[in-house]
Every structure is written in structure tokens, then in C-alpha cells.
């Protein structure tokens, strides 16, 4: 059954293309080679998880796809166009609390919608309400951000990222700060929403099990410098339960490979 190496889907046109992307971060005292020669193709509607220990460049790669950072070398394209900057087609859902505390839940979800031209106020409102309901927070529409629990906050962040209807959703360890039970609920939610709306999702995590639970493909990174080491296809049926035995087999296998690359550095 072992996880197999795969070629990225060739039948579907690539939504995101990264060719030989390299990135360095320079400070006065040291230079970090964050990404080294990363090549990756992601198909339309694919759910790809980037896994690796801290400092392996997976978040940097996500920021590059988002257009928040620029690569020092290499080509990054979305729909065949070079990515020049951030935009509502590729939205990021961050790990930390990135919700705006001066806005209510509704105000936060409306924020991105207001930046889209050609929507009337009523249409914006309708979309915002739809996505707030989709993440199960209808009752909290007018709540202030600080009144919500951690899991609810990340649900709002998800609704905020989904509302402007991006074709690519970039998720940077979005559930990292949540407790296990809340996380499991959100795994269910995200799979349901993904199967309904078919976004292309790039999901960064250091949790192998989470990656296997969510991804069509799991891409393994190793640090110093950040490189892609291996890819695993996860052909399990959906919706997947993170506690299932089949899933555990994949994650055990991938964890074993991961440990081979990073040995003791995994802890971070």
C-alpha cells in the first residue's frame, strides 16, 4: 500500500506553475537560503499540502504564490500569467489572528468584497452572509472578533478568504493554534467546502496527519536550504476521517521519510 511517488496530474491544465524558484533572505548578520530550485505544478481544483519542519521555506513559497514576496530566481505563474503582486484571485488564510479587531465578523468578511469592483452593496452583503453561514457562524454575524473562540476566529478567516471567490486559496498553518477537537471539526468543514466549491488549495502545515487527511498530494520539504524532497499521492476516498487506519498508514510512511531527511531538526 505504501505511499507512491507521482507525477502531477497531466490531464488538467496547471493552475499554478513554479519553475526553479529560489529565494534568499539577507539580514546584516546572515543569509538564509529559504528556497532552492523549487519546481511545482498544481492543477486546477487540486488540494496540495506542503509539509516540512519549520524553516523549510514552505510558508515562503506560499507567500510567493500569494504575491506577497518575490522570488530571487525562477518563474511563478498563475493561469499562465506571471504573478506580479497580491490579488483577490489568490487569497491567503493566515495562521495567526489576522482578523481585524475593529470590525465585526460581518465587517471582516465584507473587507475583501468591498475591494472588488462591480458589486452592489446588497450583493456584497448577500455573499458575506452566505459564507458566514457556510462556516456555521450565522448567529455571530455581528459579534466582535475578541468575543469569538480560536476555532470561530479561524472560521471567520476562512469565510473572509472565500468570500471574494478566489480561484486559489492559500492556507498557512491555519489550524496550528487550535485544540485537536476544534481542528477535527474544521477538517470536516474544509473538505465539505472544498468539494462544494472546488477551489485550488495550497495548504502549508508541519502536521503530516493533517496533510494526509486533506491533500490530494502531499509534498515533502526539507530545510537548509528549503527543497522539495518527495511527493505522495493520497488516493483515499473523501470525506476522510483523520483517525482512520488507512490514513494512519500513509502518515506513518510519510513521517518515516521526513525523519530521514531532517533527523533531529524536526522538533521546531
Amino acid at each position, binding site marked *: 500500500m505504501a505511499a507512491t511517488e507521482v507525477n502531477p496530474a497531466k490531464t488538467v491544465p496547471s493552475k499554478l506553475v513554479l519553475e526553479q524558484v529560489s529565494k534568499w533572505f539577507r539580514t546584516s548578520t546572515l543569509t538564509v537560503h529559504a528556497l532552492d530550485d523549487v519546481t511545482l505544478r498544481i492543477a486546477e481544483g487540486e488540494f496540495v499540502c506542503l509539509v516540512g519542519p519549520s524553516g523549510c521555506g514552505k510558508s515562503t513559497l506560499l507567500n510567493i504564490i500569494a504575491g*506577497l514576496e518575490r522570488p530571487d530566481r525562477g518563474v511563478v505563474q498563475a493561469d499562465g500569467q506571471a504573478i506580479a503582486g497580491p490579488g483577490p484571485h489568490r487569497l*491567503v488564510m493566515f495562521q495567526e489572528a*489576522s482578523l*481585524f479587531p*475593529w470590525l465585526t465578523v460581518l465587517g471582516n468578511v465584507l473587507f475583501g468584497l468591498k475591494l472588488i469592483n462591480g458589486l452592489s452593496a446588497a450583493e456584497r452583503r448577500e455573499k458575506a452572509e452566505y459564507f458566514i453561514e457556510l462556516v456555521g457562524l450565522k448567529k455571530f454575524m455581528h459579534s466582535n*472578533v475578541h*468575543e469569538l473562540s480560536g476555532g470561530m476566529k479561524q472560521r471567520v478567516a476562512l469565510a*473572509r478568504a472565500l468570500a471574494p471567490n478566489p480561484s486559489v486559496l492559500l492556507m498557512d498553518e491555519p489550524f496550528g493554534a487550535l485544540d485537536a477537537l476544534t481542528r477535527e471539526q474544521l477538517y470536516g468543514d474544509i473538505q465539505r467546502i472544498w468539494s462544494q466549491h472546488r477551489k485550488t488549495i495550497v495548504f502549508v502545515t508541519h502536521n503530516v496527519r493533517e496533510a494526509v487527511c486533506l491533500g490530494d498530494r502531499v509534498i515533502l520539504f526539507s530545510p537548509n536550504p528549503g527543497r522539495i524532497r518527495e511527493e505522495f499521492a493520497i488516493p483515499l476516498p473523501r470525506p476522510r476521517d483523520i483517525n482512520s487506519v488507512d490514513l494512519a498508514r500513509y502518515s506513518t510512511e510519510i513521517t518515516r521519510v521526513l525523519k530521514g531527511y531532517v533527523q533531529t531538526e524536526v522538533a521546531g
Partner: protein
Amino acid sequence: MIARWLAAALFFVLLVAAWYLAVQARIWSPILLPSPISVADYVKSAVEDGTLWEATQVTVRRLLIGYGLGILVGLPLGLLTASSRWCQDTIGVLALGLQTLPSVCWVPLALLWFGQTEAALLFVVVMGTLWSLIIATDNGVRTIPPIYTRAARSMGSTGLHTWTHVVLPAALPFLLSGMKQGWAFAWRSLMAAEIYVTILTGFGLGHLLHYGRELNAMDQVIGVMLIIVVIGLAVDKTLFAPIEQFLHRRWGTARQ
């Protein structure tokens, strides 16, 4: 709520009672420490003959103009120093330096430049307010978690939109505490200026205080001091406290 009010009232009643007893004990000459009753008499007579009301009006008008000018200039400059390295190295350093200068130090300069005029008073108030306001605004903007602007940029917000929709609202709690601090500085500067600058265009609370000293009228000195404290408190409770409460409800920040 009522219990808190009662406790506060009791505290102040005890404070005045202690004062009264200290006067009764005749430890200090009554010329140096008048009894609360004679202070109250002074305040009563000053209210009745209109001196106090007039002086308060004159002072508060100066304060509002000076403070308003300080905010009008200080807020934008603080935003500038926080957003441009060049401004930080120039205006920022200037503000940091001048902020350490006690506002009363501006009085001699103001007197020589403007003479004994309204302008001299306003100048001292603006100088006393401006620099700390620049520093507070600058700090406020810098303390904003960068994740807010990243999230906004990722949703397509740029330039001016990011400033008005993200940076300013995110900095609001800091701006408010900066403005509060600015208010305290403005109040202090004005009192210093009124005590030292004798002018004929308006007789403020500081002047009342000054003449209280000249006339050896301790009841007037203490009475005016009390009025100054009460005005400071009233402004805090009516102007800043409601805004702070709103911020507390929205942001969930700790009450100060």
C-alpha cells in the same frame, strides 16, 4: 456600581475631613494652610462674581485651540515618521529630542518672539503637545501587527486604502492614548505659560493662580488648583472615557 460610587465619595469626604482636622490642630499657620471652608468660600465668591467662569472660559478656549493645532500637525507628522525612514531620521529625531524639553522652557523664547500676547501662550501649548503626540502616533503605528497589512494586501488593498482602512483603525487605541497624553501635556504647558506670561487679552486660571500667590491668598491658590484638577478629571471622564469604553468593547483591549 453604587457601591463603587459610595466608596469613592467616602474616600474624598475622609480626605477633606483630614484636611479640616489638620487645620484645626493648628500645626501650620492658617495663612499657609487655609481650611476647606475658606477655600470653599473663595470658590463660591469667585463663581458668584464671575471671575472663575470667565477665567475658565479663557483657559479652556486657549487649551482647545492649542491642543487642536497640536493634533492637526502632530498626527500627520507621526504617521509620516512611522512610514518613511527619511522622516523618521529627521522629524522623528527632532521630536524625540524636543519631547524631553519641559514645556516651560519654551516660555522665554515665546516671550521674546511673540511678546506678551495670545500667540505666545498658544505657541507654548503647541510646543508642549506636538512632540509627544508625534512620538505616540509613531509608536502606535509601529506597534500594529504586520499581519493586518499583509492580510489586507493579500485581499487587494493598496496605498491610501490600506492607510485609511487598516493602519489608522488598527492604531486607534494607540492614537487615543497618545491624544490623552497630548491633552495632559497641553494642560500642563498652558498652566506654565499662564503663570509666567502676564497678558491683558484674557485672564486665565493660571493667572488667577499667579495673583493668588502675589496676594498671599492661599484660599485662592488652593481653590484654583482644585478647579484645574476638576476640569482635567471632567475632560477625562466625558471626552476620553467613552471612547476608551468603545475601544474596549470592540477591540477587547484591557481597560487602563
